[in-house]
């Protein structure tokens, strides 16, 4: 047993018990339904902004993009405008591909030693595919949830739902995003547990968000397909939250919803202090978001300072005799 995923799993179970008992036994509906969500959002906003501002305030002393293609040099050599971008628009496309398509991850290969001594590198698309599936399905689910916060429900959200539910099986109709989300989460979790190298590098803080989001997904799916929850009551609460007139409808909503909401609150509050901040970091990574025209345009280092150097004069002073002897020109003859 691995302490890291065990600890994370236990943490999520404890959280579950906390809210379930808190709501069902102690009746802390207002606490879990209103106070904690507000608190989580406040922590999220402050934490997120602080982190981003902290990064943004830190100087970029050198322009160190990783060049992943031909540089722009002689006019007749075709430069890689996106992978080695010398212009802002090149960088923009590079970043767009990185953020929307996970381009670098797409390059992923798997190394193997074959026939005893032959190295091979095979294209490894699964991590890329499931990472993409996870992020996009999560985004879809998130956007779908706007229906709980907006009245009337905007057309685009309804449209998204109709695409998401295109399979039209069952009643209520199956939303494909939820299924993909859960499948992708399981993939990401299993690879951490089953691939020895990945298991070796994984920390509790890698498992925790996975378990937490799995918890969110499962409670969501349970509510939608398996138990009867009071949708109107839930919407009353969520609308109340966003309009700053929080109310907790009496009864009906059920513990499951509070678990769902609590998990989401924990995730939001945890976000700025965790690796999940890659959401912000990806935009600011200096190996990706800078132009590579470093020999054509001077980059300024705000804290550049003078250093002690060994000057030519000092050099000549030490070697003058020898230089003269060898017929090398000197500044001073003696």
């Amino acid at each position: 047993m691995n302490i890291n995923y065990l600890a994370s799993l236990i943490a999520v179970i404890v959280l579950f018990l906390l809210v379930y008992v808190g709501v069902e036994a102690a009746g802390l509906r207002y606490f879990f339904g209103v106070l904690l969500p507000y608190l989580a959002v406040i922590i999220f906003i402050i934490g997120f902004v602080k982190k981003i501002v902290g990064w943004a305030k830190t100087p970029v002393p050198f322009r160190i993009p990783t060049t992943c293609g031909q540089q722009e040099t002689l006019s007749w050599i075709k430069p890689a405008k996106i992978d080695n971008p010398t212009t802002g628009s090149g960088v923009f496309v590079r970043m767009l591909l990185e953020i929307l398509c996970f381009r670098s991850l797409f390059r992923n290969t798997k190394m193997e030693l074959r026939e005893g001594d032959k190295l091979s590198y095979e294209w490894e698309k699964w991590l890329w595919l499931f990472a993409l599936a996870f992020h996009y399905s999560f985004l879809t689910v998130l956007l779908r949830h706007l229906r709980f916060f907006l009245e009337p429900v905007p057309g685009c959200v309804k449209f998204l739902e109709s695409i998401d539910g295109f399979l039209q099986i069952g009643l209520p109709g199956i939303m494909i995003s939820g299924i993909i989300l859960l499948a992708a989460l399981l993939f990401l979790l299993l690879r951490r547990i089953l691939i020895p190298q990945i298991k070796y590098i994984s920390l509790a803080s890698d498992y925790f968000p996975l378990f937490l989001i799995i918890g969110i997904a499962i409670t969501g799916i349970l509510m939608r397909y398996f138990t009867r929850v009071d949708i109107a009551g839930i919407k009353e609460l969520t609308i109340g939250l966003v309009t700053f007139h929080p109310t907790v409808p009496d009864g009906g909503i059920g513990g499951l919803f509070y678990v769902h909401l609590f998990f989401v609150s924990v995730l939001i509050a945890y976000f700025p202090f965790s690796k999940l901040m890659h959401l912000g970091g990806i935009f600011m990574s200096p190996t990706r978001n800078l132009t590579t025209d470093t020999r054509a345009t001077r980059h300024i280092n705000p804290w550049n300072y003078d250093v002690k150097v060994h000057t030519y004069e000092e050099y000549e002073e030490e070697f003058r005799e020898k230089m003269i002897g060898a017929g090398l020109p000197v500044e001073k003859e003696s």
Partner: protein
Amino acid sequence: MSEPRPDELIRKMEHKPHQKGWMDTPVNIRKGMYCYASNPKSVEYLGLPNARAWNPLDVDWKLPPDWQEIIHKGFRERLDKFRSFKIFMDVCVRCGACADKCHFFIGTGDPKNMPVLRAELLRSVYRNDFTIAGKILGKIAGAREMTIDVLKEWWYYLFQCTECRRCSVFCPYGIDTAEITIMGRELLNLLGLNIDWIATPVANCYRTGNHLGIQPHAYKDMLDFFVEDIEEVTGVKVEPSFNRKGADILFITPSGDVFADPGTYTAMGYLILFHYLKDMGLDITWSTYASEGGNFGFFTSHETMKRLNKKMYAEAKRLGVKWILGGECGHMWRVINQYMDTMNGPADFLEAPVSPITGTKFENARSTKMVHIAEFMADLIKHKKLKLDPSRNDHLKVTYHDSCNPARGMGILEEPRYVINNVCNHFYEMPSNTIREQTFCCGSGAGLNAGENIELRMAGGFPRANAVKHVHQKYGVNMLACICAVDRAALPPLMDYWVPEVGVTGLTELVANALIVPGEAERTTDLRGEELQGKEEAEDA
């Protein structure tokens, strides 16, 4: 100590990590895998901290009493100064995409050579010292305190990274473990924990202008030897000039090529090329003061890099040249391309580089004012300014190794290939996952080209050698071309070890072999004195 045989080394490459967690697996500093400690004289000469004799195998590393405080403060300072460092400390998701991209992990199987884990060595301390989660949750949050064992682990693994940046190509957030290694080595240097293969070249370079400590008269002597050798092979007498004021162009190249085979043939190539171009209007000088293109300061700290690099512009200014031409070198070009102008510019006393032979304006170098010899030669060939006989390289079946820094810190990929294709008739690429931006390191970069860590070097160079072996077996490749002086020193033993029968050459050597110099005698050998194909039979008949 006898190094392991290739088959023994392969057997060691189990890529299965230990059962115990990495934080609970203490570092084992093993012979053959580490470089000797810095010589105190070299550290002192540079005025860097804590100069003293020490031995990595000793328990006591003779650290200053407040070393933890020094590391903590140094860490803080770098987090505040480098956005790269801060973001890379924060955003890694441990997806593992970088894990099997590192030649040291592939070649040693040591899990701490996975780039992500190399970075975690620092990140764990970062969490402990600078993050809320780490402070509250400790080990569960992946945090650990800075202890002497952690410090030793840093040292061992930060000098098992060649700062090649291959990992950063694959990371979804562009996390560059080389950058983290650079920061880590800076911190280690605050405690005087450098390796001698870096510290002494740096001190040499500071004093004599080059890593090898070649004094000015000796530098000239060495080039004069080449002049004689060239005359023997070609019948032409070349006349290089040194420290000459008023020349149009200053030429700077790594001193390694002046010093040892096979780099020497590349140096001879420069001399022949410049001689050839002289009548066409090339007015170029060498310098004994700026007699080093490379910059081992880069492997020490940003400040040391700047101190050494400063000479290039200073000498260009003193001599009053218009621009600088740079020779074949890897990390030298990362420094020039991404650091020099920022650190020691603006070079407003120079002019935007224009080729005196073709009139081509090197727009891409208009601010730095420094042009790469491969760019320069590609331009010459494109304009048909070089009379070439590629058949003089027919005894060679050539493949090309993209050196890490020019590939991933610059992107000079096509120029050398264009040149090779024009001076050689037999050129074969290695598999696509091992060249261009995905190229594999020679295993000896970033100052690790020592003798005592030969096992590490052979293991780290395994992926590169393996790809060479592939084209060697498939096409009979017998020559590995590169544009890096460290490669020219590091790859020959690597080839001997993994793929005997493959030699190593610089680009300019190939050019000089093919170049038909006016007034030359008929060549029967290449620059190395090896018989040219067709010539033996002709002589026999």
